[in-house]
């Protein structure tokens, strides 16, 4: 009976592979200090637009007001890009049971009130976090608009991803 034993280096190698598999994935590059607390605190960020013109600014203010008027919602971020408006919000915890319904209602109400706009709304923490990060970038004013637009559409795409 030969005793089969796996060489310790191969063991270590296999272990490392497993860890690598776990922790690889597409990591996001940047981590702005402002966004670190986005999930714990209520941020109440001012709504922003990528092109920054006044008409749009007025529009996003109205959108935010409208969303905040729902009593289940307590923290709202609105970003307007070229075509899309991204609305990310947090739902009061005990109302989260009805989160999907709130989302559907809100979508309907927004489309009714602002029929010309295209809304993407999400109550997902991740989308909220990313929209805060994007707003930081917008306020930074150093980054070209195309990049911001690209990032916005990435976030919108992410929010449509299902399990």
């Amino acid at each position: 009976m030969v005793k089969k034993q796996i060489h310790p280096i191969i063991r270590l190698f296999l272990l490392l592979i497993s860890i690598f598999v776990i922790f690889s994935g597409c990591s996001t590059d940047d981590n702005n200090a402002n966004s670190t607390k986005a999930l714990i605190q209520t941020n109440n960020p001012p709504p922003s637009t990528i092109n920054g013109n006044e008409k749009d600014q007025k529009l996003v203010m109205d959108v935010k007001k409208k969303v905040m008027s729902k009593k289940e919602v307590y923290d709202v971020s609105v970003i307007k890009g070229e075509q899309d408006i991204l609305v990310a919000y947090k739902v009061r915890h005990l109302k989260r049971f009805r989160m999907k319904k709130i989302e559907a209602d809100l979508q309907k109400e927004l489309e009714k009130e602002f029929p010309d706009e295209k809304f993407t709304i999400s109550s997902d923490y991740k989308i909220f976090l990313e929209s805060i990060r994007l707003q930081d970038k917008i306020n930074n004013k150093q980054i070209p608009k195309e990049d911001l637009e690209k990032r916005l559409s990435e976030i919108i795409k992410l929010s449509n991803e299902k399990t």
Partner: protein
Amino acid sequence: MGKSKKKKSKTPEQQQYAQFEQKHEIKRPVVRNCVVAFLVGGTICVIGQAISYFYIYFFNFTEQTAGNPTVATLIFLSMLLTGFGVYDRIGQFAGAGSAVPVTGFGNAVISASIEHRTEGFVLGVGGNMFKLAGSVILFGVFSAFVVALIKTLIMKWVGV
């Protein structure tokens, strides 16, 4: 079915003894077990939540999609704990608290595959990996099939 038949076929002597024996049996500490299961199970879920926030925060996962990597990570941790001989002790201490979370599912698969390595990788590990967890997969898949079928048919015909 077999069980109920067996119960009926017990002789009076056996029934009498069963009652007599019951008195001597050490009762399972149900309340203690439930409290421990609650605490340990809850803790594993909190760890799961932390891992899932980790993926949301540092990787491109949303709350909806973070579930998958979270489950995989928990099973990975379960592999380490099983391999180092810790999980069976947690299991004895926590009961359902460590059996019901996916880590328990992982433990069932991993412990069986480690155990049967002496019989070779094909017949031992391959053949026995799901000897404990297989029933979970079977009943999960079959009940899901029935539920999904009923729901699809209802949606089609009633048009909900």
